[in-house]
């Protein structure tokens, strides 16, 4: 690196390739009011009217092309929006942009013109916290009904106030069928919230021109369960860990638990024993296989049809994995196996039998995957259906903050497991799968190949665990019974969950419960790309594209 000419991307970097925050501060000029230190990165406090300038400078000149998450919160004396920024090229380079606004006039500039992903994030911030964003193209509520009174995460919100949300008060989408103009023959079609292909309670308002999709708008929030608020009411040590399982019922619970574990361990400065890290890595990858198998199987439902054999094959292969995870965690869906500082308990005895089970699954896997390739990816009809449909160009995907298989299917070489290593991943031999197709087919291929990579990781973990000396099997670090981080410690950490990057922001207030707990669900940002993929295509492709995103509403609505 040092031999190359310093390009625009190198602005704000030290010689060692780390973020040079002083240089960044100079770059941003007088927009910066102050500087804060978060555990994951430095953050600049900026003027509320300089959001777009700041973000686009960071994006264009310093290479921070990934607006990872937007956290909004209310303090006693102010509102605050934090833009967590990083780079698709290097996940370890992070910077926070803190935008304070006054209590009386909580308005700051919208970041939407710089990053499309800010659209939904800022709507959520308005919805739950009550900050308004000037210049936002669509300043509506997103999770709660339009008729909701107040902002639930604001300090003066009256939780006891009854909220009447009748169906009548909601806009009836059937009233205006003709959306474009009076002469057009468009028809508004409500796909969901109950529909065979929406993978949960998602409501897609599709405006059709014949069979073609003229406009799509995902309407989310049907399964909003106040997960963030619930986490804020739980203690760090034990009470929060069960929740992440509930953000993904597709089998990826362990991956989600890791997101909380990683964030809280960074916050409380806990080191996880190596043995526990290997177990975590192995079980998390089993979890990923569960999720990806479900995605592939459900995709077969979407594209092949209701009576497809592929779906049941997928279910059966998941069954094997679920049995293994049941042996390990005692649960088949809501695992709750990770603990701060390690895992709940050691591998089941007899260990040889457990390893044998995993080995048998890994050994059978290539043959099974071959069958999926025969039934799906090498089928001409499926190729006609998926190749070049639901296109998501890399630049568009980046602007929307797409991650996970969706980003990798658009050729973006980005995987938190490798780019910001955690667990035992950096010591194992595996590859990040990318496909350049940018279409539905590429996303399907990525998932199938990632199952292979996960199997590789699991295999190596089993090798390690088999030879692990018995006296060195520490499954949990020594963690204090009550965790009380220093007041006003802020941290944002993420892991590579099944659907994409799952990030968690925690601000502590000196008690044993978080003052603010913000979840960045990978599906939230991925789902936002749906209109880009589906508009102008056929309704069948809309369904296929939606399926290829593999969204799970648990982490979209939270």
């Amino acid at each position, binding site marked *: 690196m040092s031999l190359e000419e310093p390009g625009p991307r190198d602005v704000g970097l030290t010689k060692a390739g780390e973020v040079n925050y002083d240089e960044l501060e100079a770059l941003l000029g007088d927009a910066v009011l102050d500087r804060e230190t978060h555990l994951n990165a430095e953050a600049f406090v900026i003027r509320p009217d300089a959001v777009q300038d700041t973000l686009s400078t960071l994006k264009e000149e310093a290479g921070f092309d990934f607006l990872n998450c937007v956290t909004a919160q209310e303090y006693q004396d102010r509102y605050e929006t934090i833009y967590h920024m990083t780079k698709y090229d290097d996940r370890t380079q992070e910077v926070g942009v803190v935008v304070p606004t006054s209590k009386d006039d909580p308005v700051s500039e919208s970041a939407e013109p710089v990053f499309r992903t800010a659209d939904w994030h800022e709507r959520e911030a308005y919805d739950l916290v009550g900050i308004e964003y000037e210049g936002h193209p669509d300043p509506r509520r997103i999770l709660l009904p339009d008729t909701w009174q107040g902002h639930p995460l604001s300090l003066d919100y009256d939780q006891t106030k009854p909220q009447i949300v009748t169906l009548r008060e909601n806009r009836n989408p059937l009233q205006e069928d003709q959306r474009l103009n009076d002469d057009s023959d468009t028809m508004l079609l409500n796909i969901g919230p109950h529909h065979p292909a929406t993978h949960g309670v998602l409501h897609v308002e599709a405006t059709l021109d014949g069979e073609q999709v003229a406009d799509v708008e995902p309407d989310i929030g049907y399964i909003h369960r106040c997960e963030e608020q619930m986490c804020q009411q739980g203690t760090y040590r034990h009470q929060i860990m069960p929740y992440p399982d509930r953000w993904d019922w597709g089998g990826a619970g362990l991956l989600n638990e890791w997101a909380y574990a990683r964030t809280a361990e960074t916050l409380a400065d806990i080191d996880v024993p190596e043995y526990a890290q290997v177990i975590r890595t192995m079980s998390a990858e089993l979890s990923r296989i569960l999720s990806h198998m479900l995605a592939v199987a459900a995709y077969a439902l979407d594209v092949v*049809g209701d*009576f497809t054999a592929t779906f049941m094959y997928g279910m059966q292969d998941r069954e094997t994995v679920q049995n293994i995870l049941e042996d390990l965690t005692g649960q088949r869906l809501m695992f709750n196996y990770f603990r701060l500082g390690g895992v709940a308990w050691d591998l089941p005895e007899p260990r040889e039998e457990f390893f044998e089970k995993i080995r048998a699954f890994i050994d059978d896997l290539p043959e099974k995957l071959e069958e999926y390739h025969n039934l799906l990816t090498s089928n001409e009809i499926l190729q006609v259906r998926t190749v070049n449909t639901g296109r998501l160009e890399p630049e568009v995907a980046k602007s929307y903050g797409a991650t996970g298989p969706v980003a990798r299917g658009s050729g973006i070489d980005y995987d938190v497991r490798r780019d910001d290593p955690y667990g035992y991943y950096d010591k194992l031999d595996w590859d990040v799968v990318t496909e350049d197709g940018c279409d539905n087919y590429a996303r399907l291929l990525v998932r199938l190949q990632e199952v292979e990579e996960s199997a590789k990781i699991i295999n190596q973990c089993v090798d390690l665990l088999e030879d692990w000396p018995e006296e060195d099997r520490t499954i949990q670090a020594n963690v204090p019974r009550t965790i009380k981080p220093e007041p006003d410690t802020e941290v944002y950490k993420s892991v590579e969950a099944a659907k994409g990057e799952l990030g968690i922001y925690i601000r502590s207030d000196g008690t044993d419960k978080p003052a603010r707990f913000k979840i960045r669900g990978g599906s939230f940002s991925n789902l936002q790309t749906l209109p880009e993929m589906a508009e102008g295509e056929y309704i*069948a492709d809309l369904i296929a594209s939606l399926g290829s995103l593999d969204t799970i509403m648990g982490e979209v609505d939270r």
Partner: protein
Amino acid sequence: MTLSDTIAGLLGLNADDPLHFFVAAILASAIVGTFMLVNVAIAGPWAKRKITAAFTDRIAVNRIGPFGLMVIVADAVRLLSKELIVPEKVDRPAWDLAPLLIAGSALLGFAVIPMGNGIQVADPEVGLAYVFAVASLASVGLVMAGYASNNKYSMLGGLRAVAQNLAYEIPLVLTGVSVVLFAGTLQLGNVDAANTIVGAQQATLATIGGIAIPSWYAFVNPFAFVLFLVANLAEVGRNPFDTPEAPTEIVAGYQTEYSSVYFVLMYLGEFIHIFLGGAIVATIFLGGPAGPVLPGIVWFLIKIWAVFLFTQWARSALPRVRIDQLIEIGWKGMLVLSFANLILTAIIVGVVV
């Protein structure tokens, strides 16, 4: 000798008297209709589940009765006892008539199908034309159902269904016509009636190792056979051509709003159509009810169930094509191929005969 004549004879009715013959024909129709409905009853709630389960490594119904067969009764009671929900603002007469039309039109087709052992209600000279005509009546029913349901999914499904049926009806009929060129008649006839479509297939095509291969049109012109099977899949709306229903896209298409007994009728209609498709395939390509050792009716059943099995297999294994691709395959592919087949047949007939 049709079944109506036989019954007239058995009851001592005068077959030349129109009133007497009408009574006999009604009785014959009732027998054939009931027979086909029994097939459908086995196929719908039981065989289809068992077959799909076999393809997908499951067990399926096995709780009630031997092999789970009594589920047929249980399901019939369950479906009929459900509430018939009539959505607001449905176009009433059309909405009610559509299921009847869909189920009825397919049953009508069986009137001329020779099922072996003298089971054939009538044998008009325009038999084949009649079968195609009544079978395509179902398209009207689908449009009625789609349009009258006051539901956008139904509307989309109805439009898809009619577009699809138009695109595949013509190749289907054209391929059927190629058989007519061979046989020189539209009359379906029977195994022992020489100058009919079925009768003409009984001649020996070739003898291989002492086994006489009959000149079934599937052997004489395999190209037409394959073409017909594919067009038939589209006609009955099974994968890869189940686009009009496409449950994961448009919920259930034209049958979205039908519940209870109307749902049964819709479903019934679909299955009778599959069997009618199988019966047409058997009659014009597989020698009708002919076959060694076993009686004709058994061979007929084997053949129509084989076609049914084929549709279920396709359903489990093949992805669904998109509506525009489906129309493209129909108009740009199948139509051209069926014309080519027609010309090919004409040349074969012209040169050989």
